C-alpha cells in the first residue's frame, strides 16, 4: 500500500484547539503545504494575529512573532524590511484585519510591502464569543447585533479583497473559499501564487479566505459550510482580483 495523502512537515503533532469543524484547520494545512512545497520552511517567518488563531505558532515548525491586535502588517513590515530575503506572512481574522488593523493592512499594501497576508473571514468575532465584525452581513445575528445587523445603525460589510484590489502596491489579490474540496484546492493554489509573488519580488500579496464559525453561527459544521456558500459566498467578490500578469504596466 502507498500513502497518497499525508500531513505536511510544516505542521507539528500538536492537536488543534479549534472548535469542531472550524476551517482554521483546513487553512493552516494548506498554508503549511504551500510552505513545504515551495521549500521555504527554513526561511519563513509568520506573524500571528489576536483571535482564535492567536496561538497558531504552536502548530507550525517555523519562526513566528505575535503582537497586538491588528498590528501584524506593521510587524511584518519590520521583519521583511530587516530581512528582505526571507519569506514573511501575516495570518489575520476579520477583527484583526478589517477592524482595528485596517490602517496597517491598507498601508502595507499601499507601500507594496513584500509580504503575504492570509485573511480569514468568517463574518464574526470568534475568540471573544461571536460579536459583529466589519464583515458581518446585514441581518446577521451576532452577540452585538442580537436583532440582526441593521444597516441604518451599523452600516454595511466591507468587501476587503475588493478594497485591496484597488491599491496599486498590491501585486496579487485573491478571494477564495474553503467550503468544498474543490474550493480548498483553489484556495491552496491562490495561497501558493501569493507566496510566489512575494518570492519574485512583485509586491504585496493578499488572499482572503471565506471561512466558517460553527460555534458562534449556532450551526453544525456541515450546515456552516452550506451557510458560508449561500451567504458569505454570494455577498463577497470571489476570484483572482489582481495579479502581476493582469496589471497594466505604467
Amino acid at each position, binding site marked *: *500500500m502507498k500513502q497518497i495523502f499525508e500531513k505536511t512537515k510544516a505542521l507539528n503533532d500538536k492537536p488543534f484547539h479549534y*472548535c469542531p469543524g472550524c476551517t482554521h484547520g483546513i487553512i493552516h494545512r494548506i498554508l503549511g503545504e504551500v510552505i513545504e512545497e515551495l521549500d521555504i520552511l527554513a526561511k519563513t517567518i509568520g506573524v500571528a494575529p489576536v483571535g482564535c488563531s492567536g496561538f497558531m505558532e504552536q502548530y507550525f515548525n517555523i519562526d513566528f512573532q505575535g503582537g497586538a491586535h491588528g498590528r501584524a502588517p506593521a510587524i511584518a513590515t519590520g521583519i521583511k524590511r530587516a530581512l528582505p530575503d526571507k519569506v514573511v506572512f501575516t495570518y489575520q481574522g476579520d477583527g484583526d484585519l478589517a477592524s482595528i488593523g485596517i490602517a496597517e493592512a491598507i498601508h502595507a499594501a499601499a507601500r507594496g510591502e513584500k509580504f503575504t497576508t492570509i485573511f480569514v473571514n468568517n463574518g464574526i468575532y470568534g475568540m471573544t464569543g461571536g460579536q459583529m465584525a466589519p464583515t458581518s452581513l446585514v441581518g446577521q445575528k451576532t452577540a452585538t447585533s442580537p436583532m440582526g445587523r441593521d444597516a441604518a445603525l451599523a452600516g454595511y460589510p466591507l468587501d476587503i479583497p475588493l478594497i485591496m484590489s484597488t491599491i496599486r502596491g498590491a501585486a496579487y489579490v485573491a478571494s477564495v473559499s474553503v467550503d468544498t*474540496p474543490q474550493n*480548498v484546492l483553489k484556495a491552496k493554489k491562490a495561497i501558493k501564487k501569493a507566496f510566489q509573488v512575494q518570492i519574485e519580488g512583485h509586491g504585496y500579496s493578499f488572499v482572503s479566505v471565506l471561512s466558517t464559525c460553527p460555534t458562534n453561527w449556532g450551526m453544525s459544521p456541515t450546515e456552516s459550510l452550506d451557510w458560508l456558500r449561500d451567504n458569505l459566498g454570494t455577498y463577497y467578490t470571489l476570484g483572482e482580483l489582481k495579479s502581476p500578469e493582469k496589471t497594466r504596466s505604467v
Partner: protein
Amino acid sequence: MSNMKKKKDFYVTIDEDLCKGCMICVSVCPTETLSMSKNPNKKGYYPAIQHAPVACIGCNKCALMCPEISIRVFKGQPLHQEAI
C-alpha cells in the same frame, strides 16, 4: 453504494483521538464509505470511521476537508477488511 466502477483499491485511516466528530468528511464523501462511530473517543467526540473501505475511491475529499488533519489516504488494501 456508488455505481462507479473501481479499478484500484483505496482506503483511509482516521485518527480517532484527533477527530472532533464534525461530520464534514461524511458529508463530502461521494461513495458513502464513511460514517460516525457509535463509540465516543477519549474527549467525548464520536469520531468518523471508514466502515466500508471497499467503496473508497481515493478521491482525497475527506482528507482535504478534515480540519484536524486526522485522515490519511492509502492506495491498496487495509490490513483488516472491517472498518479501521
